[in-house]
């Protein structure tokens, strides 16, 4: 269980995290979603005590992170896979972490096996690691103490498609066995596939949160036609707000039934009409963060 209450972190005049409140529950994967620079990493660093909060609280299992007697056994943390001494071997980094936690040396071999780093790779110095290998090493460090809570910042970074699939299954397995998993990403697809709950953040503020099902059901309807302008006029005439999508469609909050009737009345032939699932989260994400993201709204 992770509880963040009215958390704010300021750097001078700049507010990196602005009054953020959310809960990540046991047995569920909570996706922490937001564009670059939205405050995801800062929130996670405050959560594990690396960055002091300006105000508000962050607790893991009902305690401040600093009050955990042996944090590695309760919380697995991966913030930046590149933040390791480049001169140590992968095995040595895990051995140092295992000793700090008071774990037997055999645990290092088990975890290397779990993240599929071969003995030869584990014996190499980290400066020669690819980003994917560093990521596996970082995940190994996080899982070493078999913690009940996982806090992972962009864990899929640098992994190949098979690696991403592997990590997804691994985290799903952890959550199914009762662990609290909080993972951040700016990759919508990754989060959409794995997360049960979503917390969406933009410019330091939470813009939406809830279960994935709730957020997606609010995604409305996706409709496509050869005469988009005509359909847009018809929807407006019926009082339905809508937006254009990146791939030539229209999205509206109304349900598909109603959109179909509007099109029929206006005599417009449709090519596609369906609830905006799949791409729905992406549209919601772009929409929710439209005024906060750097590129402006693409569609």
């Amino acid at each position, binding site marked *: 269980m992770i509880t963040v209450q009215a958390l704010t972190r300021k750097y001078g005049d700049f507010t990196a995290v602005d009054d953020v409140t959310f809960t990540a529950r046991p047995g569920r994967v909570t996706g922490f979603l937001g564009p670059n620079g939205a405050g995801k990493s800062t929130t996670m*660093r405050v959560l*594990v*005590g*690396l*960055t*002091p909060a300006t105000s508000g609280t962050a607790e893991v299992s009902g305690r401040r*992170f*600093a009050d*955990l*007697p*042996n*944090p*590695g*056994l*309760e919380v697995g*943390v991966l*913030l*930046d896979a*590149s*933040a*390791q*001494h*480049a*001169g*140590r071997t992968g095995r*040595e*980094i895990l*051995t*140092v*972490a295992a*000793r*700090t*936690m*008071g774990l037997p040396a055999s645990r290092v071999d088990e975890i290397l*096996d*779990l*993240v*599929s*780093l*071969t003995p030869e*790779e584990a014996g190499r*110095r980290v400066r020669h690691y690819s980003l*994917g290998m560093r990521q*596996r090493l970082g995940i190994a*460090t996080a*899982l070493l103490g*078999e*913690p*009940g809570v996982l806090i992972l910042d962009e864990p899929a970074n640098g992994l190949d498609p*098979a*690696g991403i*699939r*592997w990590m997804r*299954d*691994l985290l799903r*397995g*952890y959550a199914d*066995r*009762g*662990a609290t998993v909080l993972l951040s990403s700016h990759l919508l697809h990754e989060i959409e596939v794995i997360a049960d709950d979503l917390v969406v953040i933009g410019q330091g503020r939470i813009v939406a949160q809830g279960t994935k099902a709730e957020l997606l059901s609010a995604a409305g309807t996706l409709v496509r036609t050869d005469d988009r302008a005509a359909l847009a006029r018809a929807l407006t005439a019926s009082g339905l707000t809508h937006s254009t999508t990146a791939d030539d469609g229209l999205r509206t909050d109304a349900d598909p039934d109603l959109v179909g009737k509007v099109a029929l009345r206006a005599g417009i032939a449709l090519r596609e009409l369906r609830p905006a699932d799949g791409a729905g989260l992406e549209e919601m994400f772009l929409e929710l963060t439209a005024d906060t993201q750097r590129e402006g709204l693409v569609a």
Partner: protein
Amino acid sequence: MTAMTLTEARPLAREAAPAPIPLSRLVAVEARKSFDTRSGFWLLTSIGITALLATVAVVLWAPDSALTYDTFAAAIGFPMAVILPMVAILSVTSEWSQRSGLTSFTLVPHRGRVVAAKAIVAVSVAVGSMAVAMTIGALGNILGSTIAGVDTVWDDGPMHLSTIVLGNVLGLLMGFTLGVLIRNSPGAIVTYFVLSFVLPTLAGLLATSQEWFRTLQPWVDFNYAQGFLFNGGLTGEQWAQVGVTSLVWLVVPLAIGLRLVLRSEVK
């Protein structure tokens, strides 16, 4: 990275709250971290190597009259005085410069305990390597005087050897303090060299030209007062001067540095 293991057959639930991490374990971990990189390993190995080289050099080139234990101790002491502070600096700064602090301070959120463990390791390394170096020097003294056919002279007593050890420990703590204060490897190393090699020269120049500074110097110049420890036979006033300069140059900056370490953001 061939086979993909998907699940792990262990339960996650933990019955009792884990026991706190004892300081002794942190000291053991920090000791391991001083040796487990190539740079750390060679830095520590170089202490033994330079002690051996210095001893050989004295045996080969020192005049027979100078073949005393004091000569050996001085020859070995110089490289030690340079290397030991580097060991102390890097043990602290690498957590920031190499960013390994992200993991270290997450596994042990009480940063003061990590820094304390590092200090214990650094001082132990200093005392341990001094013991090794003095043994090498003693063997060199016996060997050198035997080869030259002169009497073996043991002119440095245990008291003097102890003050030499203390002098080197203070030098190492100076490096440690700069590491804690600056938290950047090149920055701390350069500052150390400026403080230990450039500043004494300037202070010496000032002392020769300014009468008022000459009397003040032992009370304010850390290196000058540290010299008393290497020369041995300290008077009460000299001990007081060592104490005062250590307070100003070590204790105060270390306290400021620790405060910064505890409150700063680890990125």
